[in-house]
């Protein structure tokens, strides 16, 4: 079946079988959102420039998180291309749908542009297409 918003909003209309499919995925998403929001909370609302001048506040706030973040920030190629490709596919497993839907991406014209030697940048174009593809489904068009 195709899932849509009303089924999530009013689950009484969803069959037991479908509810059984939704529940574990909702748990997966909840855990992911929890971790993602936690990372943002740990870093706090500061810019990279401000951060460079400050000490890593998370280092004492949460040693386990600090260890994780510092490992991720290792200066030498922390993420291999293969690993990045895998992670994108895992998160967006439906990436084979459709063609690129980003018809126009407005470039930022203010501020300094930072070219980052990050392997993930290599995959940005395909990842952006994946994101766009995810929204290229009429069942889930969110226009008001």
């Amino acid at each position, binding site marked *: 079946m195709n899932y849509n918003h009303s089924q999530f909003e009013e689950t009484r209309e969803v069959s037991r079988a479908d509810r059984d499919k*939704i529940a574990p995925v909702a748990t997966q*998403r909840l855990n992911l959102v929890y971790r993602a929001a936690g990372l943002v909370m740990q*870093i706090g*609302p500061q810019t990279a420039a401000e951060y460079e001048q400050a000490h890593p506040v998370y280092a004492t706030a949460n040693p386990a998180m600090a260890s994780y973040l510092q490992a991720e920030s290792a200066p030498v190629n922390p993420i291999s291309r293969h690993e990045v490709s895998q992670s994108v596919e895992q998160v967006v*497993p439906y990436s084979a749908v459709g063609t690129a839907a980003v018809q126009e991406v407005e470039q930022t014209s203010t501020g300094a542009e930072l*070219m980052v030697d990050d392997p993930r940048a290599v995959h940005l174009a395909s990842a952006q297409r994946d994101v766009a593809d995810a*929204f290229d489904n009429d069942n889930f068009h969110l226009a008001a």
Partner: protein
Amino acid sequence: MSKLLDLFLGQHQQQAAEQRRAEVYKALIHYEAKIGGQLFGPVAKGERREFFCLDERTWVWHEEQIDQFGQRHVTTTRYDVRPNGVFKSQGVDVYQALSPEEARNFYDAVMLYYERVAPELSRLQQVS
């Protein structure tokens, strides 16, 4: 022969289950994106706005508007959360550090997103 058939059927069932899981996952992201898009106020008629968590370190803002000349503008911004701050990308392989105001807005948006989305996901995980 029957073992081969069992193996084939088993793989087919596993693939079908994975496909269903992917469909639910995709639909849940869209559901979250709808909630996320409403964090910033009402969406005008004909416009589309979404904000969602793509993965542990990536957040996405997606907006579509039609200008006074009928031209459709699509903006997709990825926010990359790194240990040394949050960077955004609106083009291919170009990252830019957030301004202080943007960083504050992003932080607030993520906190609001969690406040609004987590209860919905908690509800959905308890419906079975």
